């Protein structure tokens, strides 16, 4: 049974040896820990993700980061350089392709080969493991801002080793958030263990005096996820990371669409992450937040998309997120061209720049929504701890098994899959079908009330059709779905 306990150095090294044998690139000399430490120590502050986040937080600004990745190394570098220069990205990513995410390095190799042949990327991301330390280091060296791996990999141990040794100073993911939305049959216990390893690696580097950033993946399925559910997962993953020695964590949240709820969710997320970390005894963890521009189905019209992107940026800035992940006008169609990607970045940058220093004023309405989210998170975390008899790792596994936590629309069989969200009449995301969610009766009643109110105003029944209408709604240019005649 997995436990929230720091891996011993011994255990860590034992697993490490095995991991590095997963693919030939694992034998690169830079993967000697001493060598990797030396390399990481050479990273200047402006290229260190963790340190740049500290500075941004101090200055109260919202920095921006795209998603981006293509199969071929040189094309990938060109892409990132373009996004840095034309898009004014503050942070760069390498979005990893889906074969790599499933450790199918042979498929990825095929993809690279085929892409070379056709002269265009046939993979949906950058196959970092296949390109290995040399390729990834070349990427690092050819850009001037910090770089992070963004993926969705249940078992990202080899990938994480390679990127760290390549001086990539942040890594997205977590044992829950990179399993439930990204896998089907992989056990939660396994992925938590995999990610404990990844966190332990970051903890190890911290012991050597190197601060790296970790980012639990906030938006989960990106589709009408109620804030309390994603916040709970972020808090659990932060605790798991902290135990392994991670000190610099960015918790994430995906835009829901209602301004009040989104800003409340961001605030609640930051406050409760700090609160629970302290409560569990982790004292010196530096927390920042990342806001994801709308993660669900996008409108296909490019101007509509620009509107949505810029609207999201307004919310991120007013909500004082430290980082924002941007989308593009190609979102509904496919992996964006570098031009489309840069356009999304620039529009976003314009908005956060204009809003520098501006905040959503405190108000009763936001306060109430913060309290609601916090109450729900408390209820869920309580259940998790109880389900694990005090151990949060065990608790998470059991809670998912029993549906005490349940992520809407997730493909994983480890997920109960009973929860159905829907918007209330104001567009706030509420829960229509609560499944076995560990909510108090008061909370359950609240959600029911909110949807009953919508049903009444829209003159319709509370039903799954609401959920479906809401899934389509934003891509059709409205927030709250309505029944088509």
């Amino acid at each position, binding site marked *: 049974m997995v436990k929230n306990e720091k891996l011993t150095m011994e255990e860590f090294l034992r697993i490490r040896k095995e991991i590095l044998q997963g693919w030939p690139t694992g034998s690169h000399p830079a993967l000697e820990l001493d060598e990797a430490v030396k390399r990481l120590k050479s990273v200047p502050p402006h290229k260190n993700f963790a340190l740049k986040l500290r500075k941004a937080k101090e200055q109260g600004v919202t920095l921006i980061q795209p998603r981006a990745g293509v199969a071929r190394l040189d094309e990938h570098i060109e892409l990132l350089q373009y996004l840095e220069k034309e898009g004014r990205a503050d942070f760069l990513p390498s979005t990893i392709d889906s074969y790599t*995410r499933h450790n199918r390095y042979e498929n990825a190799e095929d*993809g690279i080969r085929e892409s070379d042949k056709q002269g265009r990327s*046939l993979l*949906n991301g950058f196959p970092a493991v296949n390109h290995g330390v040399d390729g990834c280091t070349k990427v690092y060296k050819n850009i001037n801002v910090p770089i992070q791996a963004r993926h969705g990999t249940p078992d990202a141990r080899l990938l994480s080793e390679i990127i760290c040794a390549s001086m990539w100073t942040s890594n997205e993911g977590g044992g829950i958030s990179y399993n439930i939305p990204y896998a*089907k049959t992989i056990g939660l216990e396994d992925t938590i263990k995999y990610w404990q390893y990844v966190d332990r690696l970051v903890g190890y580097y911290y012991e050597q005096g190197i601060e790296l950033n970790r980012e639990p993946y906030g938006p989960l399925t990106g589709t009408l996820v109620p804030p309390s559910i994603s916040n709970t997962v972020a808090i659990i993953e932060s605790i798991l990371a902290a135990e392994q020695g991670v000190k610099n964590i960015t918790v994430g949240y995906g835009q829901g669409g209602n301004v009040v709820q989104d800003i409340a969710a961001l605030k609640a997320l930051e406050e409760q992450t700090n609160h629970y970390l302290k409560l569990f005894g982790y004292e010196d963890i530096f927390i920042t937040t990342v806001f994801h521009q709308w993660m669900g189905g996008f409108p*296909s019209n490019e101007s509509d998309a620009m509107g949505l992107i810029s609207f999201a940026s307004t919310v991120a800035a007013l909500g004082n997120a430290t980082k924002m992940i941007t989308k593009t006008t190609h979102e509904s169609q*496919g*992996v964006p061209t570098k031009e489309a990607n840069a356009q999304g970045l620039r529009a976003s940058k314009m908005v956060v720049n204009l809003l520098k220093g501006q905040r959503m004023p405190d108000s009763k309405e936001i306060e109430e929504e913060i309290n609601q989210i916090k109450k729900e998170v408390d209820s869920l975390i309580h259940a998790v701890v109880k389900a694990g008899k005090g151990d949060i790792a065990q608790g998470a596994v059991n809670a998912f098994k029993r549906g005490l936590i349940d992520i809407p*629309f997730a493909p994983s069989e480890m997920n109960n899959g009973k929860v159905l969200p829907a918007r209330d009449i104001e567009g706030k995301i509420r829960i229509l079908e609560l499944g076995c969610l560990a909510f108090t009766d008061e909370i359950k009643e609240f959600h029911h009330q909110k949807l009953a109110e919508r049903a009444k105003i829209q003159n319709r029944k509370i039903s799954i059709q609401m959920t*479906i209408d809401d899934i389509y709604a934003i891509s059709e240019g409205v927030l709250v779905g309505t029944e088509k005649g």
Partner: protein
Amino acid sequence: MKTVVIGVIGADVHAVGNKIIDYVLSENGYNVVNIGVLSSQEDFINAAIETDAKAILISSLYGHGEIDCRFMREQCEEAGLDKVKLYVGGNIVVGKQDFNDVEKRFKKMGFDRVYPPGVKIEQALVDLKEDIGI
């Protein structure tokens, strides 16, 4: 009641559309066999054989559709599924491409119907009715 097999091919985990397709086709009178995400060509073919399905509706969202769907028609024929209708939809190639080209490529691969991004399953119902009835 006609049977259709639905699922998401390859290393693709996009589950939302798949769940909606399941719901909508069932509501509209089909016997839906949903093999879910992360399904291989064999998974689709086996399910179709077992359930005597009239059509296979492949979803591919994540961009590798072009690789994942190669030789699907040939595999079907080899398995004796020579009459089954093959549909594919979602975001079936990498990037924003001219859909006419894309459609041609997939038709050449033996697909009967090819759908561009954003076509909702509700809109494809007409074709399904035409091709296999209800």
